[in-house]
């Protein structure tokens, strides 16, 4: 039964089966209540791990991420809403822990700069197009037509 093709196919199937989204939540951390656990997962996916800084605490294996995950589950078990649990972490680590920055006056520039850039680019293109379009040349008058015919005749062998 050890045909190479089948072995490769099995390996591929195994790899596909194991390709679930990476997360670092350890079995011991999980809450017994699946609804609370799902909320904790949801909240922790939006919180930055400050050790790795480009991973959520849900994905990170850093020690601190583990501690914050456990703390978050404690808060949620104690009756915090998702917003309250998030605010608890933000109060300690600042808004940088939010992977998605909140919409407020100090972040307007961040949120709207793509739109502003697009508008500026569109304006520049429109401006350039208006200046480039030259009116079509007026038709040749009788003298010019005669000169043209003459030139064409001269160039014929």
């Amino acid at each position, binding site marked *: 039964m050890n045909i190479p093709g089948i072995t490769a196919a099995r390996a591929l199937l195994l790899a596909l089966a194991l390709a679930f989204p990476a997360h670092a939540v350890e079995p011991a951390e999980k809450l017994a209540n699946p609804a609370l656990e799902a909320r904790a997962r949801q909240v922790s996916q939006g919180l930055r791990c*400050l*050790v790795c*800084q480009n991973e959520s605490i849900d994905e990170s294996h850093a*020690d*601190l991420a583990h*501690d*914050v995950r456990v*703390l978050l589950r404690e808060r949620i078990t104690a009756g915090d809403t998702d917003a309250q649990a998030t605010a608890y972490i*933000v*109060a*300690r*680590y*600042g*808004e*940088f822990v939010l992977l998605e920055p909140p919409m407020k006056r100090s972040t307007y520039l961040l949120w709207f700069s793509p739109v502003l850039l697009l508008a500026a680019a569109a304006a520049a293109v429109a401006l350039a197009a208006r200046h480039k379009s030259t009116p079509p040349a007026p038709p040749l008058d009788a003298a010019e037509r005669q000169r043209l015919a003459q030139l064409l005749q001269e160039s014929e062998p």
Partner: protein
Amino acid sequence: MRKLIFLVPVLAFLALATWFALALRPDHDPRELPSALLDKPAPDFVLPSLGGGEPVSLASLHGQVVVLNFFASWCVPCRVEHPILMRLAAQEKLPLFGVAYKDKPDDSRRILSQLGDPYRAIAVDADGRLGIDFGVYGVPETYVIDKSGRIRKRFVGPLAADVVERELLPLLRELNRS
């Protein structure tokens, strides 16, 4: 005026290049974060003392300017910082208090008996909760707390001699005057 329009991309490039050059200067750490608790009251705590005896609490530090240093025996950069702490405690009479962050008390005691103990008192933060309350994201971190119990400064990573001279000592002098 129209002829000068070619300067727009040039100026934009110069602005970006300046920005990048500033971000690349050697004493700049892009991962360093400002403390969310700056100028806010320090988190309250009551933790067992490493030396035994009275627990260490925020209330027990109140009324004085305090330098609170999070350290651990397993933390390599803490060893880099340690001689500076020893010198500051001896020469500058630095009001230095320690937090043994996520460390076994026996390990903390052993490292301090090997290297020397610069701290006036040490709180044992075995589960790292006080660290989270302060917003610690990597030891060592050093906080300056003023007489009214507010956090006035955070240093992330080992204290360097020039940072101590340039920032820490002037801040302590200023806070002690007021």
